[in-house]
């Protein structure tokens, strides 16, 4: 915008100014004293002055409101922007916290269902899996089998080679177990040196797997620097439709006891 326009009066303004000056001159001129037009003109002049004063005042008040509103809008706008930024930050951080919680939850779930030493399912976890599997039995072709495996003379291993070696044996037998079974089978650390294997839809196949597992353990050397032979006894049984799963577990335990009684390092089926 041309700034000079603001400072220098336009021709129209100049003309108006000249007219006002001329009228002021005429009204103050003594030679027109008593002239009939003078009184009328001076009354008109006064009214003109007061009206233009009013217009000026009105304009300035209205301008003031205008600029006040503009300022207030700018302030509100700034405040809104600030609130929006703050809100975005809160949402971002809060989402981040939720993600952290979710991860902690996942970790907790794993540690609640896993045996920390062997990484197998723990007792609680396999009991849940068993309960779920029992409901699926009617839909399976073959029976659900359970096998209980116990490492023979584990106390002797611990006592003669130390607990580190004992742990090493537990970890390695867990590994062998997981390798020998199907991916649909579930291995768990049942307690101490005892393991439970759930074999859904397996029937007679379960006995074969257990025999193979027993043989693999017998052939492996788990104690480094020693020719000590680690062996395991296994009791295997099938779930009978309609019975409580605890009955099946009891039977597997009796089968394991029978395998131990037969001289260990063997599989007994009930």
């Amino acid at each position, binding site marked *: 915008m041309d700034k000079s326009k603001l400072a220098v009066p336009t021709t129209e303004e100049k003309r108006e100014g000249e007219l006002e000056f001329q009228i002021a001159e005429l009204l103050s001129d003594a030679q027109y004293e008593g002239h009939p037009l003078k009184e009328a003109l001076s009354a008109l002049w006064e009214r003109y002055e007061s009206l233009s004063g009013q217009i000026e005042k009105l304009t300035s008040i209205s301008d003031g409101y205008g600029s006040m509103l503009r300022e207030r809008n700018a302030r509100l706008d700034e405040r809104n922007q600030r609130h929006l930024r703050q809100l975005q*930050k809160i949402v971002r951080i809060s989402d*981040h916290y939720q993600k952290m919680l979710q991860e902690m939850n996942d970790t907790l779930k794993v540690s609640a269902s896993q045996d920390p030493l062997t990484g197998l399912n723990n007792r609680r976890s396999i009991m849940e899996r068993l309960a779920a599997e029992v409901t699926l039995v009617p839909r399976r072709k073959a029976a659900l089998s359970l096998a209980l495996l116990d490492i023979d003379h584990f106390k002797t291993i611990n006592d003669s080679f130390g607990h580190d070696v004992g742990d090493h044996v537990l970890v390695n037998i867990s590994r062998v177990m997981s390798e020998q079974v199907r991916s649909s089978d579930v291995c768990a650390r049942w307690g101490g040196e005892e393991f439970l294997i759930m074999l859904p839809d397996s029937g007679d196949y379960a006995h074969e797997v257990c025999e193979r597992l027993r043989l693999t353990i017998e052939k492996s050397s788990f104690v480094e620097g020693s020719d000590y032979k680690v062996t395991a006894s296994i009791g295997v049984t099938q779930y009978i439709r309609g019975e409580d799963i605890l009955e099946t577990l009891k039977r597997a335990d009796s089968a394991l006891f029978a395998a131990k009684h037969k001289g260990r390092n063997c599989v007994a089926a009930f």
Partner: protein
Amino acid sequence: MTMTDIRLAATQSTPAVIATIATGSHDGSLEMRGDSYPENSFEFFTPVFNWVENLLAQPNATLKMELYLLYLNTSSVKAMMDIFDLLEEAFGEGKKVSIAWYYDNDNERIAELAEEFKEDCSFPFAINTLS
């Protein structure tokens, strides 16, 4: 005005809060520890916010915040940001304010979160591992 210290023990859902001012000065320290997901976070944080606001209203006030916070729910995040805004304002007035946020080495996520809080703060804001 006279300011009373704040001493709140941690609960299941609220952090421990210890707010003290060194005698004969306006040098304050505010320590917060634990998880924060209060049922009514407004009720919980208002006294803390007011304490900080009152302290920083003193012309020669200083404030050192030490945080050992773990989980914060959304309203606690907002409350902490409001408190940090007070520090930012005081820092702008030339007051000595600072935050040190401590986290356990095996919980890197806390450090990332502290980093996000720090983003718009121009006053000293340290993020340290506990060791």
